[in-house]
């Protein structure tokens, strides 16, 4: 677990409970986590500091997950992204290739799968 301690994960969701859910699990495995409540705040953080992974919701006020990823990529940030959403949300927003996220996970996130996926990506 120690080897994960230098890795920073940014968790973006408009629900504090969902942020806490992910944070709690991910921290158990030694990663550092930070959170943002919408895409705009997340983008600010991503531009200011270095993260190794982005986990984002789709439906959010101000800037949604799709716009966030598009902006992230436009700014040349090439970190892996996990999109957490319902099947329908994902389909309606991400069936194209432009903002292609690294991976999609279905809400509610399966903790074990989340960690396994993070391990794959980092």
């Amino acid at each position, binding site marked *: 677990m120690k080897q994960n301690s230098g890795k920073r994960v940014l968790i973006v969701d408009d629900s504090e409970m969902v942020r806490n859910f992910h944070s709690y699990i991910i921290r158990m495995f030694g990663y550092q986590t930070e959170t943002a409540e919408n895409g705009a705040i997340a983008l600010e953080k991503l531009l200011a500091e270095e993260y190794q992974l982005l986990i984002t919701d789709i439906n959010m006020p101000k800037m949604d997950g799709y716009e966030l990823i598009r902006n992230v990529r436009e700014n040349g940030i*090439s970190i*892996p992204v996990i999109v957490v959403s319902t099947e329908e949300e994902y389909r309606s927003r991400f069936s194209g290739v432009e903002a292609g996220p*690294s*991976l999609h996970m279905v809400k509610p996130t399966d903790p074990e799968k989340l960690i396994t996926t993070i*391990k*794959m*990506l*980092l």
Partner: protein
Amino acid sequence: MKGVKLMIVDDSPAIHVIIERAAIANGYEVCAHAKNGDEAVKLYESTRPDVITMDITMPVKDGLTASKEILAQNPCAKILMLSAMGDEEIVKEAKDIGITHFMKKPFKGEDIVNAINNMILGETGE
């Protein structure tokens, strides 16, 4: 960075195309194409490339085994290992045998070029 000799090892022809396009655009020479680890080891002896891009999961002989054999021939061989999601355990092993450069899939042609440049410069810098 002209004149760098590159060997591409991958079971996917499409990946060969992606890397080759970028390499040629930057004045590299692709001296060998290998579609699995076995071919790579053999071609390494005969072509002596400056840099090898090495896929991990391949039929016949995987990238890790091939890298071990190449490093046994020449401990200074420069191998850029191309990993995909799910390869993290192999990446760990690769680090143990002394491979220091990795690239995650999917990458863009320019990413590969930058990585190769760094590998070469790293040497002249020492």
